[in-house]
């Protein structure tokens, strides 16, 4: 069976993508799955710091340059069953990502002998990010409760929808749709309205893949919640998405704010390893189970026969 791929993205930097993806990977590894954590943050790779490792010479850049295989790039970590591929560390050597490279990466990843692969994407809805995001099995979007990151999340949703639309139409029709979207935004809206119906009536495009998107919805995770209101924000975002875009998303869970997180990063020790019995590790466990409900999770020590 090929690996199940989780892509973790966000509309904006600093909301905790790397923390969420590394903690999710550790949680899955703790559940006795073999996990690969890929750092695909081309602007600021720091998964290795989150895992408390020294940066290595080899990075995903070698794969993008076509110099090395993913198998050779993956390196073991201090956590059993968890491997990682380091992100671009020497940024002066970095070459911009070409179109299609994201897709190629996902295809290569599928060949690897892991149960789960967690890809930590860079911030924003860049073309490569969206490419990986759409071909992943689970698309996880991280936000926190601040208006800035919520706004950027909506921009991410828009980019995501347009990307889905562009894949299914001719360039001409796409231009028409883009115009329709801009008009839709400028228009004064009254009451309940549907993005989908609007596009249908104005640009004359019918959207069956909205329903396809529903079968693999974007998973929203609200990070660093400080109150119940923050936790409920996910439901609000979900409601706004379905009212505004007519797009169903899934609110997968929230992760509380914990002062110990930055403390453990400063100590260069993964939070879930340094503090395994906190509320946060419970929340990550719930998240992992929510994202892979059919897997056979083993909690505790597995007997080796």
């Amino acid at each position, binding site marked *: 069976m090929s690996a199940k791929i989780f892509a973790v993205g966000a509309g904006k930097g600093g909301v905790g993508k790397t923390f969420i993806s590394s903690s999710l990977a550790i949680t899955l590894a703790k559940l006795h799955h073999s996990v690969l954590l890929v750092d695909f943050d081309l602007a600021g790779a720091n998964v290795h710091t989150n895992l408390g490792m020294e940066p290595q010479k080899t990075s995903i850049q070698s794969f993008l340059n076509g110099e090395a295989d993913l198998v050779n790039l993956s390196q073991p970590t201090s956590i059993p069953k968890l491997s990682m591929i380091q992100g671009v560390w020497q940024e002066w050597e970095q070459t911009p990502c070409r179109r299609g490279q994201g897709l190629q990466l996902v295809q290569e990843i599928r060949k690897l002998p892991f149960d789960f692969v967690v890809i930590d994407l860079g911030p924003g809805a860049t073309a490569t990010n969206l490419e990986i995001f759409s071909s992943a099995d689970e698309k996880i979007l991280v936000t926190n409760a601040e208006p800035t990151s919520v706004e950027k999340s909506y921009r991410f949703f828009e980019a995501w929808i347009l990307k889905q639309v562009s894949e299914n139409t001719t360039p001409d029709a796409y231009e028409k749709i883009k115009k329709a979207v801009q008009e839709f935004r400028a228009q004064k809206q009254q009451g*309940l309205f549907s993005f989908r119906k609007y596009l249908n009536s104005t640009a004359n495009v019918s959207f069956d893949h909205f329903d396809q998107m529903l079968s693999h919805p974007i998973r929203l995770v609200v990070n660093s919640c400080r109150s119940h209101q923050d936790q409920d*924000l996910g439901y*609000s975002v979900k*409601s*706004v998405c*379905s*009212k505004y875009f007519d797009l169903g998303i899934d609110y997968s869970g929230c992760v509380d704010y914990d002062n110990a997180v930055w403390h453990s990063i400063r100590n260069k020790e993964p939070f879930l390893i340094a503090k395994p019995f906190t509320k946060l590790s419970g929340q990550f466990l719930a998240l992992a189970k929510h994202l892979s409900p059919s897997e056979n999770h083993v909690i505790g020590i597995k007997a080796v026969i």
Partner: protein
Amino acid sequence: MDTSERYNYYDILEINCHCPQHEVTTAYERSKLTYSGENPAIYTMFNESEARELLKMVEEAYSVLGNKTLRALYDEKIGQKRPIADLSFESLQTESKTVFSTLPKKPSNDRAQFVADKAIEDEFSATTHWDGTMLKKAREYRKLSHDALSNITKISVYYVKALEECDPKNLPAAVYVRGYVSQVAKVLALDEKKVCDSYMKIFKSNLEKK
């Protein structure tokens, strides 16, 4: 699209039409939280007036779906493929009233059969000697059975009967008996004080006889 078009209330609250009642309330509370006040979730998506408009729709949806009777009626109408435009809180409320207008009438009161008789009432007001027999007479004049009297006064039938016998063996202590007599007198529209004093005198003499 046509902005005057009305929407399914379930769509507005984003719930399944088979969901239990408590989920309707949860959905309503969440929607209310989303579209009122300064929730960061509506930032850059809906402006203030749009949010207010949405909140109004949410409130309207909940005014129907939050009420079990109206929700059942709404479901029925949706099932009959009635145009949604006809279904509003007001129309459903009027309809719910017409459906239940033929409620069975309450069973008539036992005391309705009572026929006033001036002569007997005068006799009651003239009597100063109130014993069990007189109480019985007053009760029968009022057309009340033992059971009916017991029902009204909440004194057990056993004691009601014993009161009419004026039988201390079957009655509790004097202070309770006085309470009973006063209640019975009240129900039978007699002069409470006069009846009580007279009855208790007889009761106490019976008690000593024993």
